[in-house]
């Protein structure tokens, strides 16, 4: 009997969206380096350039530790660079020999010709756009979170020259603004924000007037309150040639999250068991997976 050859599904730890202290970041990445069964780890500030002076000192040590732990490190970049300093920083990072994640078209001119990842903030909705980016060096494409599994799968089938990555776990990045909501809630402006976002390491919950859990804010970013937990069967991924699942850091035990997804991807755990295991963790919201099924993102099509 010929053996069915199935390419291994790889796990990626996405960038931390929240304003964690340098100590917290270092502790986090030390443990990821030593214990988390992920192949690739994104580091770097994506949401707010004002945080960079705080987190920048943590990166060299985090990178060294992760690389010594055998992880491929990807340098993630700002999703909405604006100031001269932010644009310069983006250009500098794009010159790095490591893989870089582009989260705004601003990064394309200085990264063209070198391999890069496009993050979920780059609008890749169809195979023609994917191919356009691939010719400049896009190697891994993590499409916007609102795309269904079927849509990402269709792109993947038509663009075998790139790896497609699905945003599988974590609060969903839903919007960016020029306005800082943490500052606004605290009666401040963005330019004198006092970094109140650091008080909410998973984002600040936003409920409706009827106390429905709905969204979360993280500085200029709005996320879902609920936690994406897309748990595809390995065969479903293989049938579309989807190689990677992205796990987005929250304060829960991300090593355990990675272990659960590793077991799922290896076929050692059924999707419903993986979801149950995830639901037992200390998560900031309930589990959802609506987007993957072409439904509203907040819906949970699989129970629990």
């Amino acid at each position, binding site marked *: 009997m010929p053996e069915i050859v199935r390419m291994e599904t790889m796990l990626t730890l996405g960038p931390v969206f929240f304003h964690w202290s340098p100590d917290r970041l270092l502790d986090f990445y030390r443990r990821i380096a030593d214990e988390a069964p992920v192949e690739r780890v994104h580091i770097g500030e994506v949401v707010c350039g004002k945080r960079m002076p705080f987190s920048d000192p943590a990166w060299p040590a985090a990178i060294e530790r992760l690389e010594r732990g055998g992880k491929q490190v990807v340098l993630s970049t700002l999703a*909405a660079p604006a100031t001269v300093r932010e644009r310069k920083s983006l250009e500098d990072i794009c010159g790095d020999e490591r893989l870089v994640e582009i989260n705004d078209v601003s990064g394309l001119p200085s990264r063209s010709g070198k391999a890069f990842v496009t993050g979920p903030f780059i609008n890749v909705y169809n195979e023609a756009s994917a191919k356009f980016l691939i010719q400049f060096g896009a190697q891994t494409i993590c499409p916007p979170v609102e795309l269904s599994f079927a849509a990402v799968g269709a792109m993947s089938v038509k663009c075998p020259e790139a790896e497609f990555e699905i945003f599988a776990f974590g609060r969903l990045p839903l919007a960016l603004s020029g306005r800082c909501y943490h500052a606004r809630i605290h009666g401040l402006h963005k330019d004198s924000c006092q970094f109140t976002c650091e008080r909410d390491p998973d984002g600040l919950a936003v409920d409706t007037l009827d106390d429905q859990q709905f969204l979360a804010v993280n500085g200029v970013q709005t996320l879902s309150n609920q936690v994406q937990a897309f748990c595809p069967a390995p065969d479903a991924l293989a049938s579309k040639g989807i190689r990677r699942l992205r796990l987005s850091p929250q304060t829960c035990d991300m090593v355990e999250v990675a272990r659960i997804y590793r077991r799922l991807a290896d076929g050692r755990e059924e999707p419903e068991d993986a979801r149950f295991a995830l639901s037992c963790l200390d998560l900031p919201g309930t589990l959802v997976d609506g987007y993957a099924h072409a439904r509203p993102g907040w819906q949970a099509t699989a129970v629990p």
Partner: protein
Amino acid sequence: MTTTRMELVCPAGTPATLRAAVQAGANAVYCGFRDETNARNFPGLNFSRDELAEGVRFAHDHGSKVLVAINTFARVDDVDIWKKAADAAAESGADAIIAADFAVLGHVAKNHKQIRLHLSVQAAAATPEAIGFYAAQFGVRRVVLPRVLSLQEIAALNRAIDVETEAFVFGGLCVMIEGRCYLSSYATGKSPNLNGVCSPPQMVSYDEEPGGTTARLSGFTIDRYERGQPVGYPTLCKGKFKAGGRTSHLFEDPVSLNAGGMIAGLKAAGVTALKIEGRQRGKGYVSEVVRAFRKAVDAVEKGGEPVDIGRLLAGQSEGARQTAGAYEKKWR
């Protein structure tokens, strides 16, 4: 300082509004086809191919231009629908296509070199690097600026780029960066990028409750109004929410944009064109707003006294509050 006159770009949701906008003094009107290829995909709005051709003839006869918005993101396996829309726009004799998707931009740049390409606000290009990339790759001639930039930033940007800029001056105000907001699909399954709609009407309910009228979107409470209070449309980012122990219009108050007082500032910042939002609006509204802005722009161009746009548009404010939005830095 620019020496050319600023262009007034006005919305046309229907052939009747197109004519009204042209007659009220629009230098250009923008419109879309009656399908998911444009970001105002509402029932009863937009143009058939024949209506567009006729609209182009009417506008050109009156010295106005027509810009066709094909500014949603093409669906995988259906990219041809977007390409055909671009082909039809080019064949209609329209003056420009407004697009955001690499697939659409690439198709127009390759196959319709005679038509101008404008980069839609949905592409959210806000830096010299991003705008330069779109200009180099697709020959984009104008960029519609995201509604999150201050006047100072627009001035700095214009000094650093070679393409024209177009800035929103009136109408609906997105507080999120356009083209990168998935709030609507999170709640409803439909979004600007996927479907050309935001907070779609078929998902809205107004429920009469003891505390008043509750406006919901897809079952999520967006705002509540006491009896006798005017009831607003539950656009997600203008809703009232609880966060950090406070109840507030967290993202933005239910306000609309009015930068009528900033026309001279936008001109000084090097902006080429001023855009009025509202393809979903009727022709009475469009006529009045365009006429008011025509007067205001002409006054600025003549270097005379600024016109009080608020007074001119007293009939259209509907009691709703207005803001100059991100053009003033403190908005952030």
